[in-house]
């Protein structure tokens, strides 16, 4: 490759990654700052981590958010898998276009609109059938499941479309029932996609401010809502400490997941190749 050209590309990459990572690095560095004036360095200290761990409001909100995120991720994976499977494997069923639309629109829909529309639905439902009674954890969870399952559906659909259908067909030809084929063949094949779908749903729920603000009720402030109300008043080293913890957890989680999935994928491909080779 031409030397100038590769220099240009490398500097483009370097600039881009610097842009993506410098803010995160500065968050982490200033979480260890002694001074309360987040951006003026006054010596190394871990006292803000201590403050964070004593802040009941943040801890309560974090615990609430984690509970919502776990329930959300489980439901979103179940519903999203069904939707992704339907789109990838069931051909042209009635209403397919609408389902495709309802799966892709939440990916780009501005959050203020999703939040407002769900709130109006919940208010109307409460009027009509008395459920959900008031707003809180239940309504936040339902709202999160709705957008998370769309992401899961896309992930599962694309995974299934890239995997050879012949193994499933072979099993069906040999008389296995569809449900059996799904549980024993399809599910293990899409396992990596299920895991990434679960993790993505979990983090998106943990991260959502706008939609949760619309559909939450008194006494159900999630972590992003508490963080937002603090951050609006200005920078606070406790929030830097929180951010550092989250970034570390995510980095470790993603790296482990990435390595494990990569290894599994390689093993699966090798097994498939060996199975083919052994019979040729």
């Amino acid at each position, binding site marked *: 490759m*031409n030397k100038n050209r590769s220099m*240009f590309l*490398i500097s*483009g*990459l370097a600039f*881009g*990654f610097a*842009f*993506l990572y410098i*803010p995160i690095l*500065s*968050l982490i560095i200033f979480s260890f700052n002694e001074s309360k004036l987040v*951006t003026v360095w006054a010596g190394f200290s871990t006292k803000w981590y201590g403050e964070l761990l004593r802040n009941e409001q943040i801890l309560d909100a974090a615990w609430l958010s984690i509970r919502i995120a776990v329930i959300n991720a489980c439901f979103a994976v179940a519903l999203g898998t069904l*939707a992704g*499977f*339907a789109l990838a494997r069931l051909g042209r069923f009635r209403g397919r276009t609408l*389902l495709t639309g*309802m799966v892709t*629109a*939440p*990916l*780009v*829909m*501005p*959050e*203020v*609109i*999703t939040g*407002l*529309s769900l709130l*109006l*639905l919940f208010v109307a439902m409460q009027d009509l059938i008395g459920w959900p009674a008031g707003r809180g954890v239940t309504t936040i969870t*339902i*709202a999160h499941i*709705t957008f998370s399952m769309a992401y899961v559906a896309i992930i599962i659909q694309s995974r299934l479309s890239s995997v050879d259908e012949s*193994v499933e067909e*072979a*099993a069906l030809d040999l*008389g296995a029932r*569809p*449900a059996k084929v799904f*549980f*024993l063949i399809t599910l293990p094949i899409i396992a990596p996609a299920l895991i990434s779908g679960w*993790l993505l749903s979990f983090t998106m729920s943990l*991260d959502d*401010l*706008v939609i949760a603000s*619309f559909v939450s009720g008194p006494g159900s402030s999630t972590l992003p809502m508490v963080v*937002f109300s603090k*951050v609006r008043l200005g*920078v606070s080293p406790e929030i830097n400490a929180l*951010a550092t913890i*989250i*970034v570390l957890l995510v980095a470790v989680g*993603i*790296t482990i997941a*990435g390595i494990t999935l990569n290894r599994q994928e390689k093993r699966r491909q090798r097994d498939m190749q060996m*199975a*083919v080779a052994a019979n*040729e």
Partner: protein
Amino acid sequence: MSRKAYITLGDRITAATDLVSQSSWWGQIQTWVEVLLTRLGLRGQGLVVAIPYLWLLLFFLIPFAFVLKISLAEAVIARPPYTALIEWTEDAFIDIKLNIANYLFLLQDDLYWKAYLNSVKVALISTAVCLFIGYPMAYSMARANPAWRNVLLMLVILPFWTSFLLRVYAWIGILKNNGVINNILLAFGIIDEPIVMMQTNFAVYVGIVYSYLPFMILPLYANLERLDNTLLEAAADLGCRPIKAFFSITLPLSIPGIIAGSLLVFIPAVGEFVIPALLGGPDTLMIGRVLWDEFFANRDWPVASAVAIAILLLLIIPIMVFQRFQAKEAEAGTA
């Protein structure tokens, strides 16, 4: 795969299937699930489609009908704070009141127009900047050697997994008057007094480009990675210069990626709330923020709903174009 291999593979699978389903808890669970579903009168494909379908219908599509409905109501001080559209009058007439005053209000008040147009402008410029930064990145990633490719891809995805809110917050510390940039510039004596960057439109652009950049890079990368290299080699063999090959082969072939990435940035950016709220000033008018304030500060649900409908009217075409692309990509198994 040869036919023989196909069959043997099938045999192995069934053998394995039987082994697992006869002996393990996994088989037990399967049987229970099947029995349960049959009891409920739901079986097979119909069920697979019906469950997610009904969920999305109820919690994604139908809510828009309520937004439209409330946008035609009147605001009152009550719980919920709007009037009913349909009422039974005493002499058994159905009284339907449609109030278009909210829309007229939006049309007449400059504030809404300005916010609306400014949002489109901010979203368009941010999309262009994302493309400008993201394209070279995606291109270099796709051209990097395979071992590096996965690492780079992971580096692009990683920020996307960390809290969006906290990443926007990080910019406050960098941009404010006694923030990182100003401190560095002051320390080197490049400037004498801090440059005001926080609470300006500039900060909003930085925030949006920063937050949405991965959404631009990922579809572009997916597209550029599967670009057929033999085309470029053929062009080079025939004496085409790399720059020309880029503009006549790579760029045209990557248009689907450009469109998908641009829509992924543009559509949510129009309705963005968090970034203008945290980084923008009081004069940074964006329509998502207007909606938020109407709803939370003024408690005017009908006007907030009318604003939502106005945003949707603007975004409906980009959203439909995006869906077309997404559906095509998903069917090709590359989304």
